[in-house]
């Protein structure tokens, strides 16, 4: 097998010192090297989204970001470094890959119009414009600047926000900032129940 001089040179320079300086027969190793199908895996530390133990997980994804390939999850491993779960996972945690790569996932914004019997796909831009318009109308119709005793209350009781159990702290802060600024008093979360 023909081994390019360039490959040989670089290998000798950086990694295969033993090949060049020690004098091993480099050809078979270089031949095997050229035949390798290398895959690139990224390991990402995450936290199981289920209960509150917060088991560490390491999500293994393949796909080269540089080559613009969407990563695929190939394995979810219990984080062996995590002091609480020490690499173990429960039956829910063990099947997390199914949760991430699940054909039932919602992938398109949809709308169900008043009186309609079906979902329709809608663009993000349209959905966001529509929602903003609905919020503004509801707010302008019902905002309470002062209560019956003339006290400033600046509140909006006609719109509610309910947050979920895997919303992050940072997202929740944005909720407080945006929703309290709209005047919402009905800000609630899974945490309540």
């Amino acid at each position, binding site marked *: 097998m023909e081994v390019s001089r360039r490959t040989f040179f670089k290998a000798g320079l950086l990694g295969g010192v033993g090949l060049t300086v020690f004098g091993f027969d480099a050809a078979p190793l270089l031949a095997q090297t050229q035949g390798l199908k290398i895959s690139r895996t990224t390991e990402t530390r995450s936290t199981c989204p289920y209960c509150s133990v917060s088991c560490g997980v390491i999500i293994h994804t393949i796909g080269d970001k540089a080559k613009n390939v969407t990563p695929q999850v190939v394995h979810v491993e219990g984080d062996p470094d995590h002091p609480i779960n020490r690499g173990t996972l429960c039956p829910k945690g063990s099947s997390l890959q199914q949760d991430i790569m699940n054909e039932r996932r919602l992938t398109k914004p949809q709308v169900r119009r008043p009186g309609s019997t079906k979902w329709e796909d809608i663009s993000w831009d349209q959905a966001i414009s529509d929602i903003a318009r609905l919020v503004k109308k509801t707010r302008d119709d019902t905002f309470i*600047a002062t209560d019956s005793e003339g006290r400033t209350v600046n509140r909006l009781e006609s719109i509610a926000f309910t947050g979920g159990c895997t919303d992050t702290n940072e997202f929740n802060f944005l909720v*407080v900032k945006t929703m309290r600024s709209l005047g919402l008093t009905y800000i609630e979360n899974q945490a309540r129940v």
Partner: protein
Amino acid sequence: MTNGWIDMKNTDMMLIMGGNPAENHPCGFKWPIEAKRARNAKMIVVDPRFTRTAVVADQFLQIRAGTDIAFLGGLISYALQNNRINKEYVVNYTNAAFVVKEGFKLPEDGLYSGFDPATQVYNKSTWNYEEGGNLTGKAAAGATMMAAAMHAGAHPAMVVAAAATAAAKPGAPPPPPMLPPNVAYDLSLEHPRSVYQLLKKHYSRYTPEMVERITGIPKEQFLKAADLFTSIRKDGDTKKVGTIIYAVGWTQHTFGTQIIRTAAMLQLLLGNVGRAGGGVNALRGHANIQGATDMAGVFDILPGYLKVPVPNDKDFDTYINRITPKAAKPKEWDSFNYWSNTPRFAVSLLKAMYGDAASKENGWAFHYLPKVDRRYSVTDIWDDMYRGKVKGIFAFGMNGVAIGPNSKKNIEALKKADWLVVCELFPDETSSFWESPGITAEDQKKINTTVYRLPGAGFAEKDGTFVNSARWLQWKNAALPPPGEAKLDQEILARIFLKIRELYQKEGGKFPDAILKAAWSYTNPNNPSLVEVAKEINGKALADVTDEKTQTTIKAGQQLPGFGFLRDDGSTSGGNWLYCGSWPEAGPLMQRRGTEDPSGLGIYPNWGWSWPMNRRVMYNRASCDVSGKPWDPSRKQVWWNEAAGKWVGNDVPDFKPDSKPQDHMGPFIMNPEGVGRLFVPLGFVADGPFPEHYEPFESPIANPLHPYQSTNPVVKKFKTAMDKYGTPAEGYNVVCTTYRLTEHYHYWTKNNPMNVQLVPEPFVEIPEELAREKGINGGDKVRVTSARAEYIAKAMVTKRIRPMKIDGKTTYQIGIPIHWGYRGIVEEEGKTAKDLANELSPTVIDPNAHTPEFKGFLVKLEKA
């Protein structure tokens, strides 16, 4: 949790009650098992069902759902009567010695002093301490009266109150009574109105016989458990330590907060709080509901547990005066009263929210915040929507229809709403409410709600911080982008908000100020980086800030190293004081993954970051005796270092670091008293200073303690046509409780084939005896009916729930796991009845935490 998951390995005694960690937290449960294996620790499990946790318990007790206070009250009484308490701890670290105001009445008849039957609220002015200093040795009744009378005239609290009343404009309600600054106390604990004596008297009614009548736990079993749990304080032992572990089995009651208080009181009496292997430990059920609470995802607080403004707070100063507590303690003792820093926290929060628009001149944009003077809890949302008041709702990851209570009411409510915006991972019950079972195509045409269903990002697709039940902040990284057109939640929220802002900018509208001025200087406003938000939450200096004591200066623009640097003059901003220190200038501490545990106690100080200031066990000053020496030298949390003149330890001292033991500063630094509250003064809880057993709202019996005040007097029921409540007289005589399974997660894993394979279908757990009575065999379809709805599922006939003798009457309990609905793998294959367990549960909530009573409501059961 006051402590943490790994810390459970340090315990000698576990009471697991109102929680089923083997089922719901299997990987965390390795630590209780470790305690059993390595320390021969004992485990007592109390539950309505023999659970997976009960499997490894040393003693299991079957309790009637909702009678936990009776059981725990019985334990308190047992501990007091048998001297199984840590006396030094009780005298010095709790308010046991404090003297309670004259006129305070215990609830022999079910009511504390001050109840107004018309409004169904308490006037809490007698729920207070007496003013007057050291009464030790003056315990005679006459002397007490004298002391009370002597101080009555010059009561500083009253003076303050009077002044405030005079200043207020006519018609305004008088300000609430305050704690006395110089509390009367009797270190001998003999004063008849000392907290200790009142406590003893109060729980003396919780005899083993009474416990048996109420809970259904036979007296002998109760006494065995009481002896076992309190055995850690046998013969004056102060080394051993016990923990109490609970979850929503305690919170989901109309007196849930009080159950937890009873447990906390028991732990204070035994001296178990603040110690390795001790504490009161809420397991919590979800990945980030601890964080959601810290971050004020709920209506009644602002980030960091700051109180929300009320309409009477006419300006920022009024607000801050109202919510900042003043120290109230024996004169000779010290109190850190950490909440005295409230102004720093509040101003910094407003600076984080409104930036330059929050200035001293405009009271830090105080009026941008809505004023809250009534309940806006999740159950109220659906009620107000049903009444036509709530017109639109965002549901970002909360499946409100399935969560209930009374799911049918929530569906009816949504039919009346104008719009619903759901952001979810999977098709869920809430977004599909208009196509739920029983709604025909014709019906759908009459439903005018616009529903947006937006595809959000799963946990693996987003970065950001989760907080576990041990208060550990742990940052996680995104492993891949959301699938298809799905987007990150923060992008969806930001784009909606910015679009609204744009509309107000262009068109004007009602009170646009807060919308236009909200600080939004993220690099990518349409998709804020959570790194930037996390740094914003931690807080930064807006001008140079110097700590006087250490002469450390944080330069303008730098991240703050801890909440000691927060200021009330506008020179700092910070979204949540509790998280201040999580992302200092040096970098994000919640991203740390240090695996060192030098003490061997499982503290792992360099893994993530826990609030407050990386303390892993809260109130850990109490892990030492009065002189500052650890109760148990083999499990040292912190200790006083005389040479260094400060508190040091394996954990970060949760205390004023240089407060000498001689100063007698209380370890419970978040209370103005500095000590743990066996008696909760004033209105910090709505239903009484000591927890009292009340029956669940729907109960098979009248309360044996006071049949004429059977349920919690301050519970309010909802009043629409759909809020129905059942009674035994109407045939609802089976106690029903709801819960989760280890194989499933809420309403989520019904989309995963593996989890569906493990437990494919909904079921109802039924005692053998009840099944026999009703002619039900295992696997038969049964109909469970509450006053609200019917639920059909298969029967699991079991020995694990037994008939109980409750107040002499045979009573049955059944249980329903909640994991199914009308969207999911088996649901869509038509394999289930498509009912939601929470169609059955009642719309009635705890007056303090506003959590619905999902546990222990009444149903009928029959073969379907």
